[in-house]
């Protein structure tokens, strides 16, 4: 149930076409802003980049998980975007990122939400799950897969 709250249909983008890391960040954050999940686009991006400055959230395996606990987050949300072409994201293994999860958590994020993110993080380490996400053909299929986390 919780994953359904964090990733709604409007939070999924299957034909993500950003070309650079900065463009990717801005486009993903803009989805949050457009749907009133954050109250300040630039402010939220600043928090995202602050986290990014510690180490890249391009964790390898074709995954990027830019995330922030930020006072600008109104509704805890995860944006899922897939780029077939791939986007350079300063990954540790040097590979382009194809699967993006932008995680927006309020500063007082509940443990329940953090727990579901921990489950998602663990699941992303499994190749079969990554491949299934990369191969989804429709929004419904993507949501179904992502919501299996519950």
């Amino acid at each position, binding site marked *: 149930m919780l994953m359904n709250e964090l990733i709604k249909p409007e939070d999924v983008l299957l034909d993500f076409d950003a070309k650079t890391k900065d463009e990717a960040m801005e486009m993903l954050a803009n989805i949050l802003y457009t749907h009133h999940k954050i109250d300040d686009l630039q402010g939220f991006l600043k928090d995202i980049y602050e986290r990014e400055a510690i180490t890249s959230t391009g*964790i390898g395996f074709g995954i990027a998980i830019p*995330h922030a606990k930020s006072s600008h987050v109104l509704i805890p949300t995860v944006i899922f975007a897939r780029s077939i072409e791939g986007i350079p994201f300063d990954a540790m293994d040097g590979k382009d990122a194809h699967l993006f999860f932008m995680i927006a958590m309020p500063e007082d994020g509940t443990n329940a939400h*953090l727990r579901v*993110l*921990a489950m998602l993080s663990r699941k992303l*380490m499994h190749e079969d799950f990554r491949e299934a996400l990369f191969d989804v053909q429709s929004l419904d299929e993507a949501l179904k897969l992502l919501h299996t986390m519950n």
Partner: protein
Amino acid sequence: MKKIVCITACPTGIAHTYMAAEMLENAGKSLGVSIQCETHGAIGIENKLSEKDITESIGVIIASDIRVDKKRFHGKPLIEVSIQKGIQEASKLIQTMLDGHVKIYMHKEEF
């Protein structure tokens, strides 16, 4: 079965901590090693290592980008790496521990 105890921790504690834990646990399964991994995430400390876990283990792997108190690991072989390495090189880290030649951690109080 040989046992290795681990700690994973990252600055935000939302994702990397659990990714590294999962990778270490999975790598342990493939290498036939029992892995006990304590996670320091935004939720707090979970799966806390007991004194028994530490005593029984052949060594300690810490994958963290934040400071972790190592006092309880005094006298154990200890490998300390970044959280990214914990995710990317989990098997290698476990193999290194199995092969031995890991420096024994001697705790010194910091003032």
